[in-house]
């Protein structure tokens, strides 16, 4: 859907062991369809007060 640009690394040597891509910041349709299989979510730490409104909370408790 978009062009992908490998990053160039600040150092030489063994950097070829790492591959890297930059892609435009979009929520892709492919990711959305994949999300039905997503079991849980990683993100910045939330407080207990904010927990109920997080996607992680919704996913953990879906269908329970």
């Amino acid at each position, binding site marked *: *859907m*978009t062009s*992908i640009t490998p*990053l160039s*690394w*600040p*150092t030489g*040597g*063994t*950097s070829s*062991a*790492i*591959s*890297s*891509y*930059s*892609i*435009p*910041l979009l*929520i*892709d349709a*492919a*990711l959305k369809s*994949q*999300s039905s*299989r*997503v*079991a*849980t*979510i*990683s*993100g*910045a*730490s*939330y*407080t*207990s007060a*904010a*927990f109920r*409104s*997080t*996607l*992680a*909370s919704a996913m*953990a*408790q879906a*269908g*329970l």
Partner: protein
Amino acid sequence: MSNSSFHTGLTDEGWQRAVHLEDVWGTVVILEVRSKELASDVENALADAAKFLHQVDDWFSTYRIDTPISALRMGFADVNQMPEVIQRVLEQCAQIRDLTGGAFDPWAVPGGVDPSGYVKGWAADVVADLLVERGFENVSINAAGDLSCRGLQAPDQAWVVGIRHPFDDQAIIGSTVLLNTSMATSGEYERGKHIINPFTKDRHLNLASATVVGPDGGLADALATALLIVGLDGVQWFQEFPDWSGFLVDSETIHTFGPAFMNLGAEL
């Protein structure tokens, strides 16, 4: 004293699920096990594993005055007087400080040493392994955004995990599978400005979100925060770790490296 809840259900594929939510550390930790048939003592097993999270609080809370780490911070105790587990965690933190050239530095914050940036991811790994030792093959721990997964989420399906979109709290921006590995994400979109750049001593960060995937949850947690501070230059730390991966988001671009995100480019 602590708030917790226990729930059970079925996956779409018919596996049994058990979920335990534990209020601890000012946040909520999710413990989940899945199997074709879960052991009858699953509720007790999850509650027992969650007790470790409170033990971690008893050791490492900087919000309580009665913890060993607070005694160390206030100068009432020497590091040699700390419980062995605290000494080991601080040794790990010192190694990560060296690896990151000081971008992760629990000693550079006001108020004394604070290893919190390592402890959450480390504790998620310990809890996951406690449940594996107890006989649960398929385990997912979500410690307020730091994940540690073991086994599968469904028949022939490793755990699929999403990364929260830093600018949309109901969207994911990426996903991958965790094969007995851990994932940590650092950002300031949940709790506001709370990370100090140890180089500039201010609050300038170079990324909106930094996610690290690897076989060590504590290291992943620490490196995610270090990448958030340093930005793309921090990718050089991973040259010795080809099995580690990263997913970095700035104001307009996603940058990825490592095997966990290798297929991402191909899909788009």
